[in-house]
C-alpha cells in the first residue's frame, strides 16, 4: 500500500484545480502509469487550453502548452520526430472535441502513434461553464441557461465510439474517476493506452469522465454521484477497442 500512495516524481508540485475536480486524479493515474512503465523520464506532453492548462504547473516533464484544440496536431509533429519518446496529449472535452475536433479526429484517422487523454466534464470549465459538445441533454450551462436543447445544438459527441467504430486505432476506452473501483479501471485503461504507444501499436485514446463541482453547482460528492447516475447514460464506460494480442 505504501508504494501505491507514493506521489510520482514528475507530479510533485501543487496543483491549482478547484476542490473536488477530477483532473488531479487523472494526472495521478497517468503519471503513476508512466513511472510503472519506466517512461516518466522519457515523455513529452502537449497540453490543451482550458482547465487542462493547469497541468503545466504540475508536471516536471517536457511539455508544450498548445493552442486551443491543436494538441493532437502538435503531438503529431512531436512524435514524428521523436519516435522513441512517449508523447501524450492532455486535453479537456471542449478543447479536444469542440474547437479541436478536426485535429483530434485527424490524428486518430491517421492512426498516429501517441496517446490522447480527454478529461470530459461536460462543459467548458476554465471559462466558467459554457456548453461543450459533450454537455448532456437538458444540462444547464452559462450558454444553455434553460438546459441544452439538442434539436438546436446537437447531441453529446461520443469520440471513443467514433474512433473505435470507424478508424484503425490501437486502443480506445472511457473511464471515470468517481469511485475506487472506477479509478482502478481507469488506471488500467491508461496503462493499456500507454503500453500500446510504447509498443508502437498506433493511436490510443482514453476519455475520462470527471466531475466539475464548480460549474455544475454541486458538491464534490454530488458531482461524483451525478456522473455514475446520469453522465454514464450518455457516455458508457469500458474498453471500445482492446489491444490486439501479440
Amino acid at each position, binding site marked *: 500500500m505504501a508504494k501505491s500512495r507514493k506521489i510520482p516524481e514528475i507530479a510533485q508540485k501543487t496543483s491549482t484545480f478547484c476542490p473536488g475536480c477530477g483532473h488531479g486524479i487523472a494526472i495521478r493515474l497517468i503519471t503513476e502509469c508512466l513511472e510503472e512503465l519506466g517512461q516518466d523520464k522519457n515523455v*513529452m506532453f502537449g497540453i490543451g487550453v482550458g482547465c487542462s492548462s493547469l497541468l503545466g504547473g504540475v508536471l516536471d516533464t517536457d511539455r508544450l502548452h498548445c493552442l486551443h484544440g491543436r494538441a493532437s496536431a502538435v503531438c503529431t509533429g512531436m512524435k514524428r520526430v521523436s519516435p522513441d519518446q512517449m508523447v501524450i496529449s492532455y486535453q479537456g472535452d471542449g478543447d479536444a472535441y469542440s474547437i479541436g475536433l478536426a485535429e483530434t479526429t485527424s490524428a486518430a484517422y491517421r492512426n498516429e502513434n501517441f496517446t490522447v487523454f480527454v478529461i470530459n466534464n461536460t462543459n467548458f470549465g476554465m471559462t466558467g461553464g459554457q456548453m461543450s459538445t459533450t454537455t448532456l441533454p437538458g444540462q444547464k450551462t452559462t450558454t444553455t441557461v434553460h438546459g441544452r436543447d439538442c434539436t438546436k445544438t446537437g447531441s453529446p459527441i461520443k469520440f471513443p465510439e467514433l474512433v473505435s467504430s470507424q478508424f484503425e486505432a490501437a486502443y480506445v476506452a472511457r473511464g471515470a474517476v468517481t469511485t475506487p473501483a472506477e479509478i482502478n479501471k481507469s488506471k488500467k485503461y491508461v496503462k493499456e493506452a500507454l503500453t500500446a504507444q510504447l509498443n508502437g501499436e498506433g493511436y490510443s485514446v482514453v476519455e475520462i469522465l470527471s466531475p466539475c463541482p464548480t460549474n455544475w453547482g454541486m458538491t464534490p460528492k454530488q458531482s461524483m454521484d451525478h456522473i455514475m447516475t446520469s453522465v454514464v447514460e450518455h457516455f458508457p464506460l469500458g474498453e471500445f477497442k482492446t489491444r490486439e494480442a501479440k
Partner: protein
Amino acid sequence: MGDMIKGNHALAEAAVRFGARLYAGYPITPSTEIMEYISWRMPEVGGAFIQAESEIAGINMVIGGAACGIRSFTASSGPGISLKQEGITQLYDEELAAVIINVVRYGNGIGTLYTAQCDYLRETRGGGNGDYRAIVLCPESIQEAVDLLGEAFDLSEKYRTVAVLMTEGALGQMMEPCTLPDFIEPKKNPWGFDGKYSYKKIGIFDRDSMKEAVLINEKHDAIKANEQRWEAVDVEDADYVFVSFGLPGRSTKGAVKALREAGHKVGIIRVISAWPFPEKAFDAVNPDVKGFVTVESNATGQLVEDVALTVKKSYAQNKPVYCLPYVYGIPSTSAIQDDYNRLLAGEIKEAF
C-alpha cells in the same frame, strides 16, 4: 551555374539539404509543388512529411517538430498563411525556431492566383495576435531564394524566432539555373524536448510579461542591428532612389539601368530583409536626393510606409516618397520608366 530548376522544387530540395526534417502543410496554389516534392523527398532522408488536414494543423505540427529542436518548416500562400497565423505567433511566443515560406499570391479573402506582393505588411508586422515580428527575407531569383532559405533556418535558430521566406507566385513557378547547397548534417537544437526535461520551463501562469517585454525588445534590437539585408545600386549620386523587393525589385534594377543610360540620375535600394527593414541602406544615399519611389506589386502601397518612416528618420528636411503600386504581376522595366517620367512631369503625387 547550376541546372535549371523550378523555384518551388529548388526550395524543397534546398530545405532537405539545409537539414530540415519535418514538413507539414496543406496544398495551395502557387506553393503546392514544395509539398509535392517534399512528400517523396523527406522520407528518403528519414525526415517527417505530414499532409495535414488544414493549414492550422500543419503549422501546429511544425510547432511539435520545432519544440523537439528539429528544423521544421511549412509553405503556403495567401489565405493559407492567414490560417497559420495562430501558430506563427505561438512559435514566436515559445521562442521556437521555424521557417515559413509564403509564395505570395494576389488578393484579399480567397484571393487570386496572380503573383503579387500584397502580404508585405502582414508579414513584416508579425501577422498574428500580440506584439512580435518575424524575420522576413525576400528573394529576387531562385538562386537567392535558395540562399536566403539557408539564412532563414540559421537566423531562426540564432534568435529563436520565426523566419519567413516571402517569395512570389512567379518565383515559385518559373525555372532558372540554380546551384543547390551542399548537404549539412541535421541537428537537434539544445532547447528541443528529449523526454528527460533537460530544458526547463516555468509554469504557464508563472510568466512575467513585464520582464519578457524587455527581452522581446532586446531580441528585436539585436536583429535590427545585425540582420539588415539589401542591395543598393547607384544611390550615391541619385536624384531619385527607387525602393523595391522581390521580382519587381529585379525589374526595377533593369529600369534603373535603362534610365541611367537615358541620362537620369536614379538608383535603387532592393530590400532583401523586409523585417528588419534595411534602414542602414539609406545612409549611402545622396544627401541631396530629391525623393524616393517604391515599386510594389499590390493595390494600396505597403512598402512605401516603411520607406516613409525611414526617410522621416534619416533626413531633417522633408523628402517626398512616391509609390508605384502595380497591383499584381511583375512590372516591366518600360512600365517603370514610363511611370518615372510621369512622376517627373508631376502626374503622380507623393504618398508621403
